[in-house]
C-alpha cells in the first residue's frame, strides 16, 4: 500500500512520492520554502496517519542544497511526529548521499529531534 500525493515541482526542487518514499531532487534555497514544504509535509503526515503506514523513506540523495528555512519546515514535521503517542508514531528513514557532505551534519540534527523514530542511512 503506497501513498498518493501529487509531485511538487517549484523553485528549483522536485519532490515526488513513490510508493512509501519521498524523493527530493534539485536544491531548496528559495526565500520561503515553507510555502510548499509545509503543505506537502502536512498532506504526507495526514495520509501516513490515515493509511497506517509505519515506515517511510525520506530520500534526499539528489538534494544538492537545503537552506535553514527548509530545515525548519522539515523539523516542524518531525516535531509533529515526535508529539504523537508511541503507538501512532511512524519511522522516518532519511537516505543521504556521501557526495553531499552537508547532508551528514544537517540530517544528524534532524535525527536528534526524533529519537527512536528517525534513522539515517548514508550511501
Amino acid at each position: 500500500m503506497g501513498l498518493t500525493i501529487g509531485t511538487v515541482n517549484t523553485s528549483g526542487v522536485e519532490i515526488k512520492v513513490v510508493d512509501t518514499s519521498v524523493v527530493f531532487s534539485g536544491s531548496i534555497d528559495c526565500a520561503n520554502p515553507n510555502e510548499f514544504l509545509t503543505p506537502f509535509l502536512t498532506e504526507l503526515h495526514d495520509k501516513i496517519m490515515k493509511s497506517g503506514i509505519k515506515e517511510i523513506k525520506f530520500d534526499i540523495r539528489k538534494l544538492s542544497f537545503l537552506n535553514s528555512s527548509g530545515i525548519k519546515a522539515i523539523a516542524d514535521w518531525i516535531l509533529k511526529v515526535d508529539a504523537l503517542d508511541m503507538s501512532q508514531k511512524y519511522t522516518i528513514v532519511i537516505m543521504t548521499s556521501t557526495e553531499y557532505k552537508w547532508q551528514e551534519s544537517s540530517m544528524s540534527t534532524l535525527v536528534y529531534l526524533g529519537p527512536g523514530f528517525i534513522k539515517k542511512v548514508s550511501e
Partner: protein
Amino acid sequence: MVDYESDTMGYLDITFGPKWDYIPLSRNFIENFLNVNMTDRDCIEKITMSTSELLENAVKYSHMDGIRTKIRKDKEKPEIIVKVYNSVKKEDVQKLTKYIDELNAASDPFEFYVMKIREKRDRGGLGLARINCEGRGKLSVKYFPVNDLYGYIEVTSVFNVNNTIQ
C-alpha cells in the same frame, strides 16, 4: 580602481543587487573559489553553506541595493574569512549585535541551534545559529553609520581550515 586585498593567499569579491536569484550564483562562485584553495570537501561545503546563509540574511534585511561578499584565504593563519556587507536600518543593528553576542556566548552551539529549530514562532536567526553550529564559523558584526537612520553592516565569519592548497 580595484579595491585590492593585501595579506591574502587569494580572495574573491562579489557585489550583486539585493535579489534572491543571485544567491545561488554567488554560492557557486564561492564554492569554486574554495575548490581552487582547498581539498577538504567537508570544509568547502560548510563554508559555502554558511556564506549562502549570510547572503540570505543580507538580501532579507538590506535597506538598499548592493550586497557585497568578500572571501579570502589568510596569509598567516589557516583561516578562510567571509565578509558580507549590506545596508541596514540603524534600529536593526542592535538586535543583530545582541543576537551574535548571545550565539558566541552559548556554551554548546548544537544545543543553541536545536533550541532555535524548536521555536514555535520563527523569530529569525536560525541561519546564523546554523553557521555557528554546522558551519563552525566564528561570527562578528560591525556597523558603519551613514547618517542617523541608516548605515552598513559587515558580518564576518571566520573558519579554521586544514588541507589548503598553497
